[in-house]
């Protein structure tokens, strides 16, 4: 039996996290099929067919799949389930929304946010904001899994030559409908896959001061993130939030500016390769995880950093 991977996409491009989920599927082992459901999923299907390691792309084309509505997508996935030993989705907000609905319809207990695969039945996942790691075994006939993207390398987006097969739709549930999106647009790299992230916290004092971080980010090709306190205060939009309940990042370099280092924030960034903390309080817990700590007022240090980077 093969593995089905749910492709997260925006009807234009597939999300990078899908590539990490494909890698996890390859580690489990078996024929990998990708499910592309959406409006105009034709173009994405062509891209998806090129992902290395994918044997087949299943395409369900229909307006009812365009916006990731769980009420429409879960029955579609359930209809396919009997053919697969595992069904994986990236642990994006789309994957987290849909997969538990699939699991319950199949009467299966889901394994959320896996970070390591011991064997085809045994997986490791973080609990308590990553302060403990739990290894669980599942004997369910179909394993429903979401994959933490930072824990698995991205599969190559090219080199594959999967067959593409159209599958039937099962219509609109009528339970929910899409109204609109308010997406933050940025020219900077995406937070969860950027090689460098610079995040600001409550210490930034207001949204306008994030311009200082953006200038540094532009010099480094970095994404900009934030703590919950900075988002709650309205300095930046919600999609900047790094942490237990925001995004999980693991860049080569993470720079925390004016962030104290609460465990809920650390949960989202402590697997970064190199961590820098800039904070005026030398007792701030963020220094306990920082490779390089600078005790300084950020309003001096950040402009200086920008200058120093030339």
């Amino acid at each position, binding site marked *: 039996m093969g593995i089905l991977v749910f492709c997260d996409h925006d009807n234009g491009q597939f999300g990078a996290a899908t590539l990490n989920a494909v890698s996890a599927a390859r580690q489990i082992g078996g024929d990998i099929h990708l499910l592309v459901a959406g409006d105009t999923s034709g173009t994405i299907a062509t891209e998806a067919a090129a992902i290395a390691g994918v044997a087949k792309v299943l395409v369900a084309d229909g307006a009812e799949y365009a916006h990731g509505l769980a009420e429409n997508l879960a029955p579609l996935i359930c209809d396919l389930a009997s053919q697969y030993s595992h069904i994986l989705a990236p642990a994006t907000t789309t994957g987290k929304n849909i997969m538990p609905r699939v699991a*319950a319809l199949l009467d299966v207990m889901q394994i959320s946010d896996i970070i390591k695969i011991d064997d085809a039945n045994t997986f490791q996942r973080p*609990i308590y904001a990553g302060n403990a790691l739990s290894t669980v075994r599942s004997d369910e006939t179909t394993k429903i899994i979401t994959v933490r993207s930072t824990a698995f390398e991205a599969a190559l987006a090219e080199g594959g030559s999967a067959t593409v097969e159209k599958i039937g739709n099962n219509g609109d549930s009528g339970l929910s*409908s899409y109204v609109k999106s308010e997406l933050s647009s940025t020219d900077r790299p995406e937070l969860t896959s950027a090689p460098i992230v610079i995040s600001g916290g409550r210490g930034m004092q207001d949204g306008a001061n994030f311009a200082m971080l953006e200038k540094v980010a532009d010099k480094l090709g970095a994404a900009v993130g934030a703590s919950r306190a900075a988002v709650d205060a309205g300095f930046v939009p919600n999609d900047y939030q790094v942490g237990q309940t925001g995004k999980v990042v693991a860049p080569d370099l993470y720079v925390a500016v004016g962030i104290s280092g609460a465990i809920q924030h650390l949960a989202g960034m402590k697997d970064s390769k190199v961590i820098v903390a800039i904070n005026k309080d030398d007792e701030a817990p963020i220094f306990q995880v920082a490779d390089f700590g600078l005790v300084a007022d950020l309003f001096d240090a950040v402009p200086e950093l920008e200058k120093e980077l030339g």
Partner: protein
Amino acid sequence: MKVLVPVKRVIDYNVKVRVKADNSGVELANVKMAMNPFDEIAVEQALRLKEASGAEEVVVVSIGPAQNQETIRTALAMGADRGIHIEASHDIEPLAVAKLLKAVVERETPGLVLVGKQAIDDDCNQTGQMLAALLGWAQGTFVSALEVAGDKAKIVREVDGGLEHLEIQMPAIVSVDLRLNEPRYASLPNIMKAKKKPLDSLTVDELGVDINPRLTIVKVEEPAAREAGIKVADVKELVEKLKNEAKVI
């Protein structure tokens, strides 16, 4: 409309958890417990609906050991009307929780179930979606704004790319995110009043649900600790280290 709010008792979010020496789980003995922060937000939202006359009754339900009654009392002190306690052991999986909640929904017939989007102990983020699946209801997840109007609700969801607006059919399951509201504190008079509010108990057997775990916990471990770093004297030294030592810029 009746609103049902499931609440979970978890280790307080300020506590640093410790893994048990035998790697079977985390230490729960003598640890400060509290209501899951997301569930507090769900209770608060239910109370606001009631205050705006959008709800007649707010019923809270908690599944777990006898101490969960304290968690229910906390919600009652915030202003909920009535509690239901379902006695069960500590480790009960989201799928079983969803099945128990489905049985409660069938008895109580609420028009809305407000749940926290995740519990900060197992971080599963499953129960609301599973309950919606079992009931065949609409699900609004990770919600930061909610407006109920007749048999529809307008919701705003926090998604990876920003915000998403949906309209969902009622009755529905709505899972709440951090920015939906700021929960109130219970006042002393309300804490006293809460002691007299009705709190019913149900058993798993009465609800006829199989709660045997589906997953086996092989082991629970501490994550590898990061090695202590160094403090740099100034920005110049920082940039020099990042360039030449860490080689990340």
